[in-house]
């Protein structure tokens, strides 16, 4: 199975992969994350099937598609969060720097350090202050860090998350005392404080008001200079605004999600290669 997928990656044409079309990878270099033949189950139910995708470094990849076609499942596989859910199981491999994160001897704890995640519902730790929230990930490994080291990182992360000015006087208030949009940016700051290489965002704005949404979209444009970003969104306009690459997911006949095509956002939106993509983009369904 592994050999087959390796071949697929290297001798690539549209016709080779049945039912799984995608566009040409614009650059020749290998992506920071290479997804190869990824399938995932919840118990006995197949959620996504045979996903192959290359995620470019320092780019924003948007995962779009109608609801229920495995976008969230897919992104949770990228940092091995899928297996945290009851009955979560995967097959296939995902290469980070050439090593499979699903290899038997790989510790998911390490992976999640390098691939961070922000969830749909802002989940600051309510028993911790704003400061402690941001520092939460750091404190796991820095048993001996001095206060000023932490302070430095916390401030830097909050600045990067465009939240510093709003909370610098409130650092010791509970993380849950902020507004929804601020909470989400706090979660972003928390995620970047541990300096991951990749940030995954699972519909980060769907629980927020439009003003906060725009703030976070602006934020992403700044973050992409330092991190690679994958964002799941059901909002096509957001995908068009924010991302430079996009992947379109759809549920096939047995209700498993498959990747129809992916490539440059501009190309996907103006000149999609697959008719199903075109139908979705033009609003015929979803």
């Amino acid at each position, binding site marked *: 199975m592994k050999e087959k997928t390796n071949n697929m990656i290297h001798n690539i044409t549209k016709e080779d992969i049945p039912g799984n079309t995608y566009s040409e990878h614009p650059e020749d270099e290998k992506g920071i994350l290479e997804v190869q033949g990824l399938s995932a189950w919840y118990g006995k139910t197949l959620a996504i099937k045979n996903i192959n995708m290359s995620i470019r470094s320092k780019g924003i990849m948007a995962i779009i598609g109608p609801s229920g076609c495995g976008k969230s499942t897919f992104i949770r596989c990228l940092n091995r969060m899928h297996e945290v859910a009851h009955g979560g199981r995967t097959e296939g491999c995902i290469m*980070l*720097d050439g*090593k499979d*994160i699903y*290899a038997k*001897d*790989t*510790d998911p*704890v*390490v*992976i999640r*350090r*390098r691939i961070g995640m922000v969830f749909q519902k802002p989940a600051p730790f309510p028993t911790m202050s704003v400061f402690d929230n941001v520092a939460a990930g*750091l404190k*796991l*490994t*820095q*048993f001996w860090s001095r206060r000023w080291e932490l302070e430095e*990182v916390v401030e830097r992360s909050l600045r990067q998350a465009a939240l510093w000015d709003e909370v610098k006087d409130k650092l010791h208030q509970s993380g849950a005392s902020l507004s929804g949009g601020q909470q989400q940016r706090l979660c972003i700051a928390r995620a970047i404080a*541990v*300096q991951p*290489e990749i940030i995954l965002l699972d519909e980060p704005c769907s629980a927020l008001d439009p003003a906060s949404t725009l703030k976070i979209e602006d934020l992403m444009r700044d973050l992409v200079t330092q991190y690679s970003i994958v964002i799941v969104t059901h909002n096509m306009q957001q995908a068009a605004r924010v991302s430079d690459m996009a992947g379109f997911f759809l549920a096939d006949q047995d209700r498993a999600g498959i990747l129809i095509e992916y490539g440059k956002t501009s190309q996907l939106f103006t000149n999609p290669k697959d008719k199903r993509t075109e139908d979705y983009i033009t609003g015929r369904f979803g």
Partner: protein
Amino acid sequence: MADDSLEGGKEMNNLNERGHSRRKWLNRVMLVLCGTATAIAMLMLALILGYALIRGISYLNLTILTQAAKPVGETGGGMRNEIFGTLILVVLGSIIALPIGLLAGIYVAEYANPNVAAAIRFTADILAGVPSIVVGVFVYAVMVIPMHSYSAISAGVALAIIMVPIVARTAEESLRLVPSSMREAALALGITRWRAIVGVVIPGAMTGIITGIMLGVARIAGETAPLLFTALGSQFGVQGLLKPIGSLSLLIYHYALSPYPSQQQQAWAGAFLLIILVLGISIIVRWASNRKHI
């Protein structure tokens, strides 16, 4: 051992080998400790249940169930009256406690403003923490003395006092757990407030409420201390609400401390019956509340 070569090398990200292994070791140790704790808890409790059931059933026979107790010193006899006594007292206590507890819980969950709610919750917690023997002394002072007699009704009141805060507290908590969207949806349909509560919110909290009632009933069925000075126990069987009454729990207490082996054996038999009763109530209520939700 996990493959650590996938660790990134960023500055603040420095997962040195020792730090990471230490975390993994700590993780494993704590998990094992937790499992051990569970095993200990279950073992201790299984031991008690085991002894009570096995010894109890060995001394159980038809006589015990159908006959009244024999006077002290004579062997034989049974605990028929005490069985009835327990049942009567539980029913009495519940009848008094349920309306008070439920309605108080509803008031706090649905009507009281936050300050009042906090105060009442506080009061209920205190009442729940009152030792059952203190409750017995209280009821002795306000009912047994004026009535010049130990009585079943005073025992029922004592048991009710124990049960009320349990029911009230769990009812209130369960009601609070019902999402406000449910209430708003009901109100948006034009239903009056009280109907929304009774018809929508309470059913939504039913599992929790029933759990609370279950805890309450199971608790009072086995209570002994408050009965010491209210029901007292009776050699003459059930004589009515205004007279002393025996119960399984009182019987177990007295017979356990008795020097006569035949009575000690009956204590175990009584323990068996009482456990079956208490567990039976709990299991039936569980089953009923599960059914409602399927």
